[in-house]
């Protein structure tokens, strides 16, 4: 539901049904709402069968990349004699995104259950839920849920009395956006600086502690229990447009919009209705100007593009952007796009792990130039320089943080060039140059 707003009739609340319901947080409350039936069922199934159900459901990664979840699980070979690990990526830090936070603080047991099912399916005895350090409330509730599940015998050496071992630990991050990158998260979990690793090897071959590892996003894992209970076909049918995008998606909506919050709709929902109907449209007296639909890393959309979008993996691509994490940032006509984009660049400059030259230097120079333009000291050549730097930052580094910084800058300059130009044309002489003259 559109937490903190009441459920909208056009929403489909699978994961968000109990957002705002404090009783759903406890083990008893969760069980009375049908909790842990999915795990019970899973533990009686063959591991490969669970993976096949998830494969058939069409569930894709909800963290940003959209990789098919069942396929990812099938890369793990149970019984290869090595310890396997499951990592749950709860390092939600993409600006505009706060859906995993709601899952963890309102329905922590949904995540514990999803993790337990996934862990069993991939033959992992140990699961680490890596939660960003700033998330004190989700940390509290997840720790409590894991403790409750251990005390009840759901987790541990004899999970639900089946003789199977499922261990689960919450690991607290310490402030680093980059640790949401899967290999950086593993480095961090091992007690290192969060520098992303070169791939291959991919995590399924050599992940955390050098062992086969599957890493999934919170929202992905939380969807698994219901898929098992209701079946792959049921999930697959929740698709209004492209059959490659199935199920529901949580969107966190923020910025200049009347009803910010977390909404859940089926794949293929019209973005225009979503923005104007579910989210209440623009603030009084204002107009929407631009939307960043999938967290700060995806290309900025004009309103014409946004209003023509069907909300699924392919639908966003068709309108020049990406679904990403589902963090919808709405920007209205009272905002300066230059200011918004400069602030996004500053974010990435702050969060670059500084391993790769293109990223370390590129994010810093991009920020300096954008802030120069913002402050009225830019030149027309700066725009070409920004695009050139952006192109050199794309596809040239170990991870995609560098690309993520270039994307809003390049798309922003292309789609809102006049705002940059008017700031440049009205530019003031730089105070230092003035003093020299």
């Amino acid at each position, binding site marked *: 539901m559109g937490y903190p707003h009441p459920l909208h009739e056009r929403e489909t609340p699978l994961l968000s049904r109990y957002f705002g319901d404090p009783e759903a947080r406890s083990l008893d409350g969760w069980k009375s709402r049908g909790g842990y039936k999915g795990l019970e069922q899973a533990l009686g199934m063959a591991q490969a069968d669970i993976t096949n159900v998830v494969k058939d459901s069409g569930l894709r990664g909800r963290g940003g990349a959209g990789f098919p979840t069942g396929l990812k699980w099938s890369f793990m070979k149970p019984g290869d004699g090595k310890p396997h690990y499951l990592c749950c990526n709860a390092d939600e830090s993409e600006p505009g995104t*706060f859906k995993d936070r709601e899952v963890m603080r309102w329905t922590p047991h949904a995540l514990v259950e999803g993790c337990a099912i996934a862990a069993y399916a991939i033959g992992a005895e140990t699961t680490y839920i890596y939660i960003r350090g*700033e998330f004190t409330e989700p940390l509290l509730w997840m720790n409590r849920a894991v403790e409750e599940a251990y005390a009840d015998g759901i987790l541990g050496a004899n999970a639900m009395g089946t003789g199977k071992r499922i261990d689960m630990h919450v690991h607290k991050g*310490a402030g680093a956006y980059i640790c949401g990158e899967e290999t950086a998260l593993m480095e961090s979990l091992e007690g290192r600086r969060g520098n992303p690793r070169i791939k291959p090897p991919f995590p399924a071959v050599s992940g955390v502690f050098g062992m086969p590892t599957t890493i999934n996003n919170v929202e992905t894992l939380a969807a698994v229990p219901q898929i098992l209970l209701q079946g792959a076909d049921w999930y697959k049918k929740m698709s209004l447009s492209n059959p490659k995008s199935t199920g529901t998606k949580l969107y966190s909506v923020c910025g200049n919009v009347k009803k910010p919050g977390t909404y859940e709709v089926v794949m293929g929902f019209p973005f225009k209705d979503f923005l104007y109907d579910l989210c209440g449209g623009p603030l009084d007296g204002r107009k929407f100007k631009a939307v960043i639909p999938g967290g700060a890393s995806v290309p900025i959309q004009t309103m014409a593009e946004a209003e023509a979008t069907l909300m699924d993996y392919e639908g966003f691509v068709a309108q020049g952007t990406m679904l990403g994490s589902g963090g919808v940032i709405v920007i209205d006509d009272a905002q300066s796009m230059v200011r918004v984009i400069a602030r996004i660049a500053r974010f990435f400059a702050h969060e670059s792990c500084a391993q790769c030259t293109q990223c370390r230097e590129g994010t810093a120079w991009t920020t300096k130039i954008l802030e120069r333009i913002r402050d009225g000291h830019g030149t027309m050549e700066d725009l070409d320089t920004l695009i050139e730097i952006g192109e050199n930052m794309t596809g040239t580094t170990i991870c995609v943080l560098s690309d993520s910084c270039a994307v809003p800058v390049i798309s922003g300059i292309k789609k809102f060039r006049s705002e940059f130009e008017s700031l440049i044309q009205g530019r003031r002489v730089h105070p230092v140059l003035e003093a020299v003259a």
Partner: protein
Amino acid sequence: MKQVPAAGYPVPEVASHNSSGQLYVPVFTGTSREELDTLLGRYPTKMAALLPALWIVQRERGWVSDDAMAEVADVLELTPAYVKGVVTFYTMYHQHPVGKYFIQVCTTSPCGICGADDVVRAFLQHTRSSDLGVTSADGRYTVIEVECLGACGFPTPVMINEEFIESVTPGKVPDLLARLP
């Protein structure tokens, strides 16, 4: 003298002098050491307990000093330089003492377009802080800007120590500060 207890790692003497001659009381004794022992059981390597161990240090001491890093290194069989390398990577470990109340205001773009800069100004003004990151003269407050706190639908989110507060506006700042003990 270092003993090697059942935990399998050397425990420093209760207090010792560091290279500057100052007395250092180790963190990992008593319940904190038991807590670390429990943590060590969760990971296949000792190194993996580094972030959790540093969190314990910060909880007990308020910040992570060079001496504490050396102790953590000793306990986890790492080098102090390695530990420092990790500490400096993450933004949440304080490498200097901070005010009694460490106030982090999110100013990343989504909050930025909803008025976060005004919230920052209100905190600086009402805590009588001269600048971001500079602890107020009475030692009570350190205000910083922080990158995305992940609660963008509730602008402006603010953290005061471990407390996460949603939907802070400049007008709410005096009351928020007034209720701090």
